[in-house]
């Protein structure tokens, strides 16, 4: 079959047009994933609200911290360099360094408060992890796979909240009371708060929230307009730690 140049160009052009049209149609109609593709679960967006008017952390209460440490086999090292923290107390002026002014300082000078992983919308720790040992779940939890962690500590350098700790030593002998329902970690991995995802899976609130006698810690779904966290955030003034960094923290403090 012979074909002149004109005829060849006509056929080639028409073919290109058909292919482009199909691609465009697919892109517009989501045709790549037709029926059979599983519907994505309506994701919750977990968040925590901490009411500093109710919290008595500055009077020495550590119920939330103790409950978390028990639930997750968090080790206790005396040397600060080896410290492992999931939820811990921090002086107000350190946690909210940017909120100080010469006049407001007095009110918060002695105040300390519980701080934990903020489960950021845009978590820098996830971005830097070279092995995807940590990632952002659909429901907002910054999850970590200890099996995968190679202990490079990039995530610790990236986290502006100091929410991640490295196991310099074998943590198991330093856990006060081993809870067999949750693993310990091993020397050479990073660990952090997991928003009690293992309890959420069973429909229970995080251990720290359950342990707080003052009900200062409230946990809930930001996507549910009727949730307690949304009600509190609607009615009270809330601040977050270092929001100016663009990380989108999801732990709110009511002042």
């Amino acid at each position, binding site marked *: 079959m012979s074909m002149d140049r004109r005829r060849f160009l006509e056929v080639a052009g028409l073919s290109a047009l058909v292919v482009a049209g199909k691609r465009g149609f697919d892109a517009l109609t989501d045709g790549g994933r037709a029926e059979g593709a599983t519907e994505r679960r309506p994701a919750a967006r977990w968040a925590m609200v901490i009411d500093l008017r109710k919290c008595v952390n500055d009077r020495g209460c550590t119920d939330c911290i103790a409950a978390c440490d028990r639930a997750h086999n968090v080790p206790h090292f005396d040397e600060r360099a080896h410290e492992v923290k999931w939820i811990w107390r921090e002086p107000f002026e350190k946690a909210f360094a940017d909120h100080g002014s010469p006049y407001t300082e007095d009110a918060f000078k002695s105040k300390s408060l519980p701080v934990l992983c903020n489960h950021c919308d845009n978590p820098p720790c996830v971005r830097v992890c070279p092995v995807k040992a940590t990632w952002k779940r659909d429901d907002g939890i910054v*999850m970590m796979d*200890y099996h995968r962690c190679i202990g490079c500590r990039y995530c610790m350098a990236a986290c502006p909240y100091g929410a991640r700790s490295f196991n310099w030593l074998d943590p198991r002998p330093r856990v006060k009371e081993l*809870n*067999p329902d949750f*693993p310990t*970690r*091993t020397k050479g991995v990073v660990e952090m708060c997991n928003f009690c995802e293992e309890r959420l899976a069973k429909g229970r609130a995080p251990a720290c929230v359950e342990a707080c006698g003052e009900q200062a810690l409230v946990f809930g779904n930001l996507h549910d307009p009727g949730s307690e966290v949304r009600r509190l955030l609607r009615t009270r003034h809330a601040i977050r730690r270092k929001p100016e960094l663009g990380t989108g923290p999801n732990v709110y403090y009511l002042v």
Partner: protein
Amino acid sequence: MSDRGLIVGGLVLFLALVTLPLWFNVAAGTTSKLPELTLPEGKDPFGTAEYMRASHMDLLMTWRDEVVRNQERTVVGLDGKTYAKSLTGTCLACHVNRATFCDRCHDYAAVKPTCWECHLEPRPVQRAAQ
């Protein structure tokens, strides 16, 4: 060839020394001895003994990834029942003795899985061991 006796004698001695571990095992009767494992009653809902012997580690790794990565926490066994994908919660619920099941075979095969560096044996097993 006056060294003949010396050379042959030396060779025999050398062979005897090299094969000493084999003779030692034959004498001790350990060559054909397989590890004795404590087995639970009933059928394993996740596969035959052959499958489990060869592939239990793949099964556990698959479960691990599905639970940690995809939050798919349950599995339907061959008996139609639903189980949690959990080494300590599901496997050890029947294979109650880690020392005489997991460890004994792993020692025999000279493999060192790292599961127990983090995961803890469930409570009843710990109590029995104490």
